[in-house]
């Protein structure tokens, strides 16, 4: 006898939900869509508002130019065509963010390891609270601290770096001025990203399964080998995500950087981190916004759009890395 195989029965996807569950799910779905809508609106707003400037300058010039000058004198008269190029500010933003991560990541990992694997329970709690407190400090406070306390010290460190390691190109300084450098801005940002990176790393390192740590110890593994071969591989994707979060904060930070960084237009400072030639899109916006005419405002919003895109790219990279490391496991 030939039988027809039965059709699989369909079970409604939310059959297990109660009425209250369903209402909750609807609200959550709406919230998720709302955030998407807000994000697209921001993107749309930025593109729309920056179009006049980009049309005026040309997209290529806007992205590769280093000058930023409205050519407007103090009495409001315009003599020449304005030039707006974000390249120097864009690279400056990336440079100080890299410095922040290079300094902040090892420090954060060190603190996280200490909290999870070394400190006594009481010291661990104290440190955790201190770090979380650091995360809650408004960035204006960091800015004030940076200008009053950090800059004098950072200046000496920069001078020392040039004098003793100046043969390495990144520590070159031809101006004899060591304030307002990307190095100092990077340190401020490092302090600001440390709480985020520490918290997330601490969380993921703390989730290393105890049976894996036991296994390592039973094989004669002391602290460092256990970290290197067991805990870090396990926490890898979380640490990458933490770093990207930190990078996101470093890229977008405004006030603290604005206080300590000297913005230099007209050239890109590719690598001389202890030279007083910096760039930062966020600081550029703060510096120029209040006195800008409509075209310059449009150009500043174009800078904002570039920053927005960079942040999206950073996030996309971090998601990809996190996903691929999860697959490895």
């Amino acid at each position: 006898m030939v039988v027809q195989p039965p059709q699989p029965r369909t079970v409604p996807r939310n059959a297990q939900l109660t009425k209250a569950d369903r209402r909750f799910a609807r609200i959550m779905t709406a919230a998720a869509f709302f955030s998407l809508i807000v994000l697209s609106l921001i993107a749309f707003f930025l593109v729309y508002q920056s179009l006049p400037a980009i049309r005026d300058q040309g997209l290529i010039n806007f992205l590769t130019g280093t000058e930023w000058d409205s050519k407007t004198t103090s009495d409001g008269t315009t003599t020449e065509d304005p030039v707006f190029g974000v390249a120097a500010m864009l690279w400056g933003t990336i440079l100080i963010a890299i410095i922040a991560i290079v300094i902040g990541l090892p420090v954060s990992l060190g603190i996280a390891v200490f909290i999870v694997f070394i400190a006594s329970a009481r010291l661990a709690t104290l440190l955790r609270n201190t770090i979380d407190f650091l995360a809650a400090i408004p960035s204006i406070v960091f800015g004030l601290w940076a200008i009053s306390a950090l800059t004098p010290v950072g200046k000496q460190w920069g001078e020392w770096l040039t004098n003793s390691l100046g043969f390495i190109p990144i520590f070159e300084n031809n101006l004899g001025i060591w304030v307002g450098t990307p190095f100092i801005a990077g340190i401020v940002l490092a302090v600001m990203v440390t709480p985020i990176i520490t918290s997330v790393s601490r969380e993921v390192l703390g989730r290393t399964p105890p049976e894996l740590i036991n296994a390592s110890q039973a094989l004669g593994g002391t602290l460092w080998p256990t970290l290197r071969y067991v805990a870090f591989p396990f926490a890898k994707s979380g640490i990458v995500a933490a770093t990207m979060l930190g990078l996101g904060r470093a890229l977008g930070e405004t006030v603290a950087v604005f206080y300590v960084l000297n913005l230099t237009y007209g050239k890109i400072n590719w690598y001389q981190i202890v030279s007083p030639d910096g760039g930062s899109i966020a600081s550029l916006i703060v510096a120029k916004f209040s006195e800008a005419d409509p075209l310059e405002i449009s150009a500043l919003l174009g800078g904002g759009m570039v920053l927005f895109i960079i942040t999206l790219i950073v996030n996309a990279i971090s998601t990809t890395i996190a996903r691929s490391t999860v697959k490895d496991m």
Partner: protein
Amino acid sequence: MITTVEAVPFVAPKTQGAGVPDQDLVLASKNLYVWFGPRMVLADVSLNFPKNSVTALIGPSGCGKSTYIRTLNRMHELIPSAALAGQVIFEDKDIYDPTVNPVDVRLRIGMVFQKPNPFPAMTIKENVLSGLKLAKLSNSNQNELVEKSLSQAGLWNEVKDRLDNTGGSLSGGQQQRLCIARSLAVDPHVLLMDEPCSALDPGSTLRVEQTIRELSEFMTVVIVTHNMQQAQRVATYTAFFLLEDNNPGYAVEHGPTQHIFGNPIDQRTSDYVNGRFG
């Protein structure tokens, strides 16, 4: 950190039974007392483990079998509140002597845990060799070591074609034998096993038991088990642990496995091995 506490005056019940001969011992605990914080969980445990024997530790839950086995390779002291008194003699030397490096102890006295715990980010081969990396040892012929260890653990034929897959791709029983191979790769003289089969199906359990019997031809095995049949199948000697009321746990009876199961001296041993309590 370990704080070695002096044993306070304490009337500890004597361990009964035929015991095991005093000669040819690889490992022995002498008057071992163990604490977690202020709470004494084991009192006056003195047991002998002769060369190339398998000893089963049995007893009801919470009587301190895992705690005891962890004192035998200095894993116990890794718990912050842990303390102990007494001695563990391994190859004629007290492993708690201040001159002894705990890492060396753990390399010579390996451990296999209840839940199979291969390193998830490593391949089968890397898992076997992980002890070398973790303890910073060198080995010139890694492929040979991988094959030897996996063969001793009875896993070689099943995995020889997929050494580069992750440990997680194996079945639970295979994972446990991988963990055994991983311990064997650093060449221990003693293998401690804490309920190694309790997460496994009957078939895998028998497979691991066979591995244990093969290992006992050249090494000493101590195995904690809740499975009375398993103890009788694999163990030359058996020690019965018990915890009564609020007293610390201790070893009630110790002797050849046939004695413990066939004609135990202590009534409580008899009750336990016959399933009358526990």
